[in-house]
C-alpha cells in the first residue's frame, strides 16, 4: 500500500539548503540551554515587565538521526512550549537550537522557511488542528503551496492521494472535509500533512492522547512504520508513559521547565535515579489487578509550583522526600552522577540521585508473569474479586 506513496515522496526534489546527510545515530538536532520566558506585564499604556513565566528554562538535549526521543512530564512542565520553540512557532528567549550543525533559533524569512520544511509537527488535537473549511486534499496539499520549490511537479492531486494511501486512508476521500472523519482518521490526515514535504524530523505533541484506546495502537503502529520507511527522527511528547516506552529509544523527563533526567528507555524505566521520575513511574496505573498489592506507590503531596515563581535550587524540592538544605541553594546539574555505576549512571539532575525499585517496573514484571501463566494454560489469578 505504501509503494505509491514512497514514489510520490521520491518525486519531491532534494532541497537546496541543509542538503548534507546526517548519518544514522549522529545528532540532527542539538538543543543547548534553551530558554523560553513569557513576560508578565503590568499597566496598559506603559507596560512594564513584572516577572516571567519560565516555561522552558535551560533545556539541553540532542536528537539523533533516525531515533525517537520521548519527552514526558505533567501538564505545565513546558513540554509543549519546548516543541513550539523548536518549531520556531515561539521565538526562543535564549539558548541555541542547531539543525545539522546550523543555528536555527534566530532565523527568519527564507532561512526559517527552509528549516520548517525539514522539521514538521503533528499536533495533539485532531479536531482543532485541521481547518474545518478546507477539504482533506487542500489540507495535505497546502504545504506544497507554501513550498513550491519542493512540491511535486505535475500532478499535485496524485501526490496528495498517495500520501493518503501512505497513512492508510482511502485516496478517494480527497474531497471530504475533516468533520466527516473520526478522531483517528483525522490524526492520520495530520500525519499525512506532516509528511508531505518529506521532513527529516517530526515533532509529535501528544499525537494519540485525544484518541480512543482501540485506535491509539493503530496510530502508534503507523508512526513506527513511517519512521522505518522514511528514516525519520521523532520527538515524541506524551504523558502516557507506557506508550512513550513502547515507541522511544531515549526518554527525557521534564519538570517545571527543566529536564530532570534523560537516558535510554531502559535506563529511565528500570533504573530511574531522579525522585520525580520515580514518583511519576510509580503513579502510573498498571493494567493488571494482581499488581495491586505489590505496588509500591509514591504519592506526591501538593501540586506543581507556578512556573512564574519556581522554587530556588532544585525545582522539585518542594515535593521531594529527599530534599535537604543543599537542594534549596544549589541547582542540580543534568549530568551522569559520578557515584553511580552501570545503567543507573545516566544524566540525572539530582544531588542525591539513586536507584529505587519503582512500582512500574516491578509491576511490569508481574504482568509478564501473569501472561506466562496464561500461556501455561493455568486458571489465571484467583477466583473472584474481593468484596
Amino acid at each position, binding site marked *: 500500500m505504501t509503494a505509491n506513496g514512497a514514489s510520490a515522496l521520491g518525486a519531491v526534489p532534494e532541497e537546496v539548503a541543509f542538503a548534507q546527510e546526517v548519518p544514522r545515530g549522529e545528532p540532527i538536532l542539538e538543543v543547548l540551554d534553551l530558554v523560553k520566558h513569557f513576560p508578565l506585564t503590568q499597566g496598559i499604556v506603559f507596560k512594564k515587565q513584572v516577572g516571567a513565566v519560565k516555561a522552558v528554562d535551560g533545556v539541553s538535549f540532542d536528537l539523533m538521526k533516525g531515533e525517537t526521543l520521548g519527552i514526558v512530564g*505533567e*501538564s505545565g512542565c513546558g513540554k509543549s512550549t519546548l516543541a513550539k520553540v523548536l518549531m520556531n512557532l515561539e521565538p526562543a528567549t535564549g539558548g541555541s537550537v542547531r539543525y545539522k550543525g546550523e543555528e536555527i533559533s534566530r532565523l527568519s524569512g527564507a532561512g526559517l522557511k527552509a528549516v520548517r520544511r525539514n522539521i514538521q509537527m503533528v499536533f495533539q488535537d485532531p479536531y482543532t488542528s485541521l481547518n474545518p473549511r478546507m477539504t482533506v486534499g487542500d489540507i495535505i496539499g497546502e504545504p506544497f503551496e507554501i513550498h513550491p520549490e519542493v512540491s511535486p511537479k505535475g500532478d499535485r492531486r496524485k501526490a496528495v492521494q498517495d500520501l493518503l494511501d501512505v497513512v492508510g486512508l482511502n485516496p478517494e476521500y480527497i474531497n471530504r472535509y475533516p468533520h466527516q472523519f*473520526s478522531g*483517528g*482518521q483525522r490524526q492520520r490526515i495530520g500525519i499525512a500533512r506532516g509528511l508531505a514535504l518529506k521532513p527529516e524530523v517530526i515533532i509529535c505533541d501528544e499525537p494519540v492522547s485525544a484518541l*480512543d*484506546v*482501540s*485506535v*491509539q*495502537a*493503530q496510530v*502508534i*503502529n503507523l508512526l*513506527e*512504520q513511517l519512521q522505518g520507511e522514511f528514516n525519520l527522527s521523532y520527538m515524541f511528547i506524551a*504523558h502516557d*508513559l*507506557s*506508550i512513550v*516506552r*513502547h515507541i522511544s529509544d531515549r526518554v527525557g523527563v521534564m519538570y517545571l521547565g527543566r529536564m530532570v533526567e534523560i537516558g535510554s*528507555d531502559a535506563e529511565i524505566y528500570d533504573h530511574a535515579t531522579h525522585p520525580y521520575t520515580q*514518583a*511519576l513511574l510509580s*503513579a*502510573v*496505573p*498498571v*493494567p*493488571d*489487578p*494482581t*499488581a*495491586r498489592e505489590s505496588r509500591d*506507590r509514591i*504519592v*506526591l*503531596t501538593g*501540586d*506543581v509550583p507556578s512556573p512564574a515563581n519556581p522554587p530556588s535550587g532544585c525545582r522539585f524540592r518542594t515535593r521531594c522526600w529527599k530534599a535537604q538544605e543543599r537542594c534549596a541553594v544549589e541547582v542540580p546539574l543534568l549530568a551522569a552522577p559520578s557515584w553511580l555505576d552501570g545503567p543507573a549512571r545516566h544524566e540525572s539532575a539530582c544531588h542525591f540521585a539513586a536507584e529505587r525499585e519503582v512500582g512500574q517496573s516491578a509491576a*511490569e*514484571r508481574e*504482568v*509478564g508473569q*501473569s*501472561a506466562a*501463566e*496464561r*500461556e501455561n494454560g493455568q*486458571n*489465571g*489469578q*484467583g*477466583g*473472584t*474479586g*474481593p*468484596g
Partner: protein
Amino acid sequence: MTTAVDTTKPAREAPYEGPLLDVRDLHVEFVTRDGVARAVNGVNYSVRAGETLAVLGESGSGKSVTAQAIMGILDMPPARIPRGEIRFRGQDMLRMGREERRRIRGRKIAMIFQDALSSLNPVLSVGFQLGEMFRAHHGTSRKEAKDKAIELMERVRIPAAKQRVNDYPHQFSGGMRQRIMIAMALALEPDLIIADEPTTALDVTVQAQVMDLLAELQAEYHMGLILITHDLGVVADVADKIAVMYAGRIVETAPVYELYARPAHPYTRGLLDSIPRLDQKGQELYAIKGLPPNLLRIPKGCAFNPRCPRAQDVCRVEVPELFPVTEDDGTALAGRGSACFFWKETLHDR
C-alpha cells in the same frame, strides 16, 4: 444535624441487603435530524454497598449516557428511554414522580463529573457551592452551611480549608477542584456515587492522589461506586467487578482479576492486547482494526463483528445475548458473562 459530616451516621438506614442499584434492560435513544441514535441498547448491571463497579468503554459506547439516565439528568427530548428499569433499593426510579426522584438525586446517588472546571459555577465561591447542598436539601442556615463546607473541604484534604472556603473555582488547581467535586458528592453522604472519568483530566501524580482519596472515602462510608472510565490501568487498580461496554451494550462482565487474566470477549481481549507491554518493544502493537461504529448505523448482528478477528456468519445476523461464562466442565464462574457466540474459544485463546 448539629455536628456536620458525622462519620458514625446514626441517621443512616440499615445496610440494604440486595443490590443498591439494579439497572435492567435499559434502552436510551436520541432523536436526531439524521435518525435515531441508539446510545444504550439493553444494559444490565447492579452495584451493592461497598462495591466498585467499573464501566469500561470507549467514547460512544454509552457508558456516560447510562450514568446520566441513572441520575435522571438526560435532556429529554432529544433523549428518550423507551424501555428498561433503574431500581434503587428495589424501587424503579423511572416510574417515580419528579419530587420523589429529586429526593434521591444528590442525597442518595451523587455524581462526580470529569471536568471539574466546567462543572463548578465560576462566579460562586466553592464554599457557597458546597454549602448549597445543605441549604437546598436540609434547609441549613447560611452560616452553618459554610461551616459544613469547611469540614467537607478538610475531609477531602484541601489544605488551609478555612482560608480557601471563599475562593473561586479558578483559584484552585485541577486536582484540588476535583477534590471539591468529590466533597460535593459526599456532602449528603449518599449510598452510591457515580464517578464519570473522575481523573481523566488530571496528571498521573495527581490522579493517584485523587483515586486513593476516593477509594478511602468509599470504604469509610461503605458506599457503592460506579466508576466510568476508558483507562484499563485505573480499572485494574480499584474495581471489584467490570462491565465492558461497546456500542451501547455490555459485551462482557467479570470480576476484575478474571477479566484481566482470561477475557471472554474478543473486544476485551483486543483492548488488553493493545496495551504496550515490555516484552513487545520494537514490535508492532496489536491494534483492533477499524473504528467504533456510528450509533445511527450500528452493524447488524453483533456490533463488534466488522472489527472482530473471530467473526463468523452467525455474528453478522444474530445479536448475541450475554451468555454465562463457565469452565469446560460446566462449573459456573460467578459474575461472568460474555456477549459473544465464541466466548469459549476466546476464553481459551492465547
